[in-house]
């Protein structure tokens, strides 16, 4: 039995934290090739489910902690406040927390943040960040500082790629060393995305794959499986059709969930600022911010469902954003519009000493361009 509770913490919050860690551990195992086996769960996951069962039984509601499949499906579809567990529902301050992304299913950034609450900055940092940083360490050219930005932007802009073309790209930018990692992060085009003739289609909005869908009226070209993209464009459209999948690859689900999906808003922000004449780059200075310029301007785009958790997390660690003179936290418009008082609650929850401006992505663009 693992010991995760501290006297000062509230049981409900601790339960959620252990569940978050459980999901991270479970996802790690699945990434390594395991399946979700109810008889071989990571210890944290089992512990989290046990604590959840206790909340359910004491509240006389349906026990959610008995089946990992039902639980993870619920966590993928609903924020914790809607699980049917009264202790997680409003006024619980993190009731809006969503632990797993809807599509593709993976732990959300919020889940990482919640799991790491009270721990060191990189306690649960994504393995992908680490791997990318390692690559940048190995590059000895002057362009080293740009490598991280370059590679990440490339992943976000082209989640489906032709291997040869990527190799050329890496060669042109003198980062051949990244070739192996890119291969590890990606997979061949899944059979489910192929048409009978072996062709496949690419989403016009995010560049991901379109999967043939039985509702041909709503999705004549197929359906994109990247949640934030679907939210932006509920009816996917094909940007390109590739006749043969040979030599083509797509980034794995977790990269799509962590980088490509959230990256849509980042790219949009970046492109609009550039269009407005502001000289910004994506992921400047080894990802010190999502969009920014040298030390002057830093903007992080955050897609948390729960503003209070975002406020808490930023209070605890502002990360690279703190190193910029002008600091913005930009929230995708859709999230702010969907949830009343999002920005107010976020500002209220932020207790950091470094001043930060919180605004919608569109407002940030307006503010920066002036």
């Amino acid at each position, binding site marked *: 039995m693992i010991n995760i509770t501290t006297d000062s913490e509230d049981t409900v919050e601790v339960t959620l934290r252990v569940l978050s860690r459980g999901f991270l551990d479970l996802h790690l195992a699945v990434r390594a090739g395991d399946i*979700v086996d109810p008889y071989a769960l990571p210890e944290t996951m089992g512990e989290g489910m046990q604590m959840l069962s206790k909340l359910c039984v004491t509240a006389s509601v349906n026990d959610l902690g008995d089946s990992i*499949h039902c639980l993870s499906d619920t966590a993928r579809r609903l924020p914790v406040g809607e699980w049917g567990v009264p202790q997680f529902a409003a006024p619980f301050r993190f009731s809006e927390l969503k632990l797993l992304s809807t599509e*593709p299913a993976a732990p959300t950034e919020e889940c990482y943040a919640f799991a790491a609450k009270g721990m060191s900055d990189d306690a649960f940092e994504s393995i992908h960040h680490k791997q990318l940083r390692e690559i940048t360490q190995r590059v000895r050219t002057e362009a080293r500082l740009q490598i991280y930005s370059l590679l990440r932007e490339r992943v976000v802009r082209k989640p489906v790629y032709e291997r040869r073309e990527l190799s050329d790209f890496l060669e042109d930018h003198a980062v051949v060393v990244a070739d192996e990692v890119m291969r590890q992060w990606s997979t061949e085009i899944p*059979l489910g995305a*192929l048409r009978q003739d072996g062709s496949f289609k690419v989403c016009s909005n995010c560049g991901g794959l379109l999967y043939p869908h039985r509702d041909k009226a709503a999705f004549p070209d197929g359906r994109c499986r990247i949640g934030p993209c679907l939210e932006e464009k509920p009816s996917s459209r094909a940007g390109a059709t590739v006749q043969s999948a040979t030599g083509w690859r797509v980034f794995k689900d977790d990269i799509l969930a962590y980088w490509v999906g959230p990256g849509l808003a980042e790219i949009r922000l970046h492109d609009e600022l550039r269009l407005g004449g502001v000289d910004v780059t994506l992921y400047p200075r080894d990802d010190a911010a999502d969009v920014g310029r040298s030390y002057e301007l830093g903007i992080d785009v955050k897609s948390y469902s729960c503003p209070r958790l975002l406020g808490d997390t930023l209070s605890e660690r502002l990360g690279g954003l703190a190193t910029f003179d002008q600091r913005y936290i930009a929230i995708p418009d859709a999230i702010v519009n969907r949830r009343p008082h999002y920005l107010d609650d976020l500002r209220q929850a932020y207790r950091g000493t470094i001043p930060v401006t919180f605004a919608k992505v569109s407002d940030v663009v307006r503010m920066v361009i002036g």
Partner: protein
Amino acid sequence: MRLAPDGFIPALRAQWMACVMHDLLGLKTLSVAPALLSGYRSITRHQSLSTARVALRNLRLIGVNIESEAHLQEAVIEARAWEEDHASDDDYVEPPFDISTDPGTGFAIRERVRRSDGRRTAMLAALLGVLPNGAQTTVAADHSRRFRFRVDGDNGADVICDTREIATLPPRPVAASDKVTRSAITVTIKELEDTARSLDEEDARDPTRVPRNFLTRLRSPEGQAVFSVLSPQGSELCRSDAISLDGVSHMIGLPGAGKSTLIFLLVVLLARQGRRVTLLVPSIEFALALDADLTRYSVPTALLVGQSPDARRNHATRLAERIATLDSGGFGQTAAGAELLGTRCALSAFVSVPPPGFEFPHDRPPCISLRQANLNKDGKEGREGYRLCPLAVACGRQRSARRLAEATALVHIGHVISTEVLASPHFHTERMRHFEQMARTSDLVIIDEVDGAQAALDQKGFAELDLFGSSESYESILLNDVFDPVASGRGFAVSNSIENYTLASNRFMRLNRALRAHLLERMAEEGGVLVRFKDAFVTGNSILASMYLDAETDEEEHGSRRFDLIRRLFEQLVRSVLASDVGGDDDDLSELDLERVARDLEIDHGALVSAATRFRSGLNTLLNARLVERFEENYDEMREAFFGILPHRQGLDPQEARILFRFLVEVTTVVLQFLALVPAQYAMIAEGVHTERVFGQGVTADLRRNLPESLIGRLSGIRFAYETDDRGQRSLRLQYLSFAGVPRLLLYHLSDLLTEDGIKGPAVLMASATSYLAPSPSYHVPVRPSYVLRREGEGEAWRHSAYAFTPVPDPDRPGEFVRVSGAGPERERNHSLRLLTDHFFSGSDPLVRQLREDQFDPGRRTAIVVNSYDQVAFIKAHLKRTSSSAHRVIGVTSDIRKIPSQERAEWVSASQVEMLGTREDWDALVFPMKAIGRGVNIVFPDGPRVRDAVLGTVAFFVRPHPTADSLAFTGGLAGQLALRFDQRNIPASANLSGLVREWRTARDEALDTLRWLLRRPQQMSRLGRMIRPFVADGMVDLLQTIGRAMRNGCKTRVYFVDAAFAPNSAKDHRDTRLTSMIVAMRDVLTELLSSSDPVEREIYRLLYEPFLHPLRNCAGVMFPETRRNA
């Protein structure tokens, strides 16, 4: 679980039998007890037993199930021993009957007291009444006080649980009440259509639902009936506009005829009328899917599923594998029914004081083994007792059991085997199994794919007992139940019966170890003499046959009779030594009647006597030998004596004969000694020494008591296997197998299981596509179909079905064709599979791609049928190396975890196969024969071909054949013979001795038939008179597989690719039913379609003509009547 009447002492069961025989039937002996207590309805419901019917059943229900004359004798002797043991007790009163222990008297009964004696009248009254079920006595722990459990049963550390912070717990569910009578069910087709319409309307109201279009499954948009319901009227089948269900009904129809739709609508309709329905389906996956479908239409359901840790683990693991194939290894995914297969116990969260290193046993939680002290009136805690978990009313792991107990759950869905599960002690007040619960509370029990259910039940008719090597083995049971209690001082007082049992079981262990030592010795040999017996049901009969009968030539009747005499002689010789009290040469040989044996076997009497004496002496010395090194010389002595007068067949290698003979002696002694122990085991159970687990895993005692005994008695043998663990270490597994009970009769008895209790049971509806095939022992349901479903208006598309025998030339052997079945060692079989795979999948335009696109039926895919999951893996691995389109071939796997995650899209688990209908990215599906069968349909989900079968071509790479360890055919035959006797109509004029005679004759004939079968290898060419039933059984699996490509009345193309299907035709010679399964199948079906009964003929025509028509025209086969020039 019926409670025995007050005053019933198991050891005195003979007294209770005497009461029934004497006082109800006016008999003066117990000799007829084995027949009358056999439980067969042809006997028990015979007019001459009308006064004793209830009492006979009650005797069986309390465990007085006398299987044989030996059991009867044991019961009588035990009663006498009890009398002697207790004669000096202060309160001893002589039992009411004096029963002779002399078998010669037929166990004569003499009255010791008058008929009016209180004890006799009380016995009679109890036996003629309704025996109550035992009450559930353990109560739930009080959650407002602490309680505890121990990790490993009684021996582990204490784990304290504290649930005091729970304010309130939900109340226990209210269980459904019993029904004493049930009115017949009549449902019109119009009512079903109305139900379909209302379900379609419900779908239409919810935009998130994919419409199911139920009405169009019944009526075309033009208003024509999609299928008709026909029922026999006089000498023809006539269209019926209503379905009436009372008693047992049988409904059949081709795959895709509309059975599933009809059953679904029937269930919804009845549930909406408040009727209770139990739906038994072929698999748990099927049950889960149905549960979800019914829930979608607000029908309250519950899942009937095994609750043992192993069963739960098995189901949950299979579900996890299925979910893993959906996406992301199952992360964030779920599937219908996951909430009913929860794996985590909520109590784990309330452990307040865990011992060091404690891990909560989620797969074996202490649901029924908590301990809590009673609370005395003064508020102090008193004695501790066992308690049930108080959280069962809230725990997710108990959700399924809880729902099953709720009266509001009107539809119960599960597998027929799960009906043996004990109703949860948490939610039921009586100790009862679900089959009885079902008979008490359901209005209708539907058994879908009833032929499969019957075959599954037959397999439960084998009791399997590990002889050593596991905690459930007989050796372990003996040590724990008998030896250790005495050795450790916990034991029983001295009792003659226990001492005698100890002696007999000591001998059994000695014999068992000798057999084990021999098998371990042989394990080192690759392909040794005994390999042919590996994984098979081995009896002395089958070993002896390998020594006396030539496997290559079918034995003629004379040889068969002679063989039978030799078998009997051998058995008698061994039995005479095992049963002898003294042993040695001086024993009386007269019981063996050697003079007659010599005459029958045409051998010299003097020589036989001398050989018998020598043999017995050898065996005796063997049984008493003190040095293992001396065993061999005793075997030699016995062998020389036996073969000296009855030489083995010519051509048998002497060294082989030596090994076989030793094996024969070992198996025969083990089996006979075990059989000798069985009656004593009953006595030990009665004494409380053993529990029922001593009979091994098979059917539960409760089900056995409710159904007849096995007609062939305890026909027994052994089965051994060499297993290899993950580290490559080999070990031996040795099991004792015997027939026990006739579980298939549950299907036939269910509707009037409780008649003797004055309860009219539920209506039973059996349904399938292949449950009416008279020659098939395993699958035929001998109940004249009440309803036959016929698809209308599709122009008999099956007439365009095309079957062909298409063997593939062997490139290595010019003039030969690739043969997989019977190809010899695994290496050669794999080589053959490789050649067939290349034939279908290699080249720039592979054959399998052409099959998808050619003019037969464009767009439909190909099924490649093999015999095992290993063969699927082999083909996939070969394709991966050799074919650029390997990824377009989907393999069916039994364990998705073994598949690397990047390859999982190319694999599916059997339970996930139906999802393939929505995918475009595959051309072929490879699977083992039975993995995709009953109820599994891959259909086009939408478009112009909606609901048509996606599979259009079925290629059989391997001719189906029972695997070596399959007891299916043997079990099916035993079940068929028992059912036939159960349904026999014995003339009303028959008296008791006539009934006994009928039972004995049926038993002897059944035993002869089974013995005849067991001494033959299960190969078509060597099965003689059994060939027809054997082919019929194999054919059902084959037809069910082809049926997957006939959904919605589609035409089908079948390729019989394995040259073994028609080996002569491959070489341009005629095949016969002995050489070709195709010819044999055609002949069986032709015969059925020529039935003289017009209704039968019509039923068979509707069911099997779509198969027979293309079989008759099967290209590439030279039928016996084919003219060479043609």
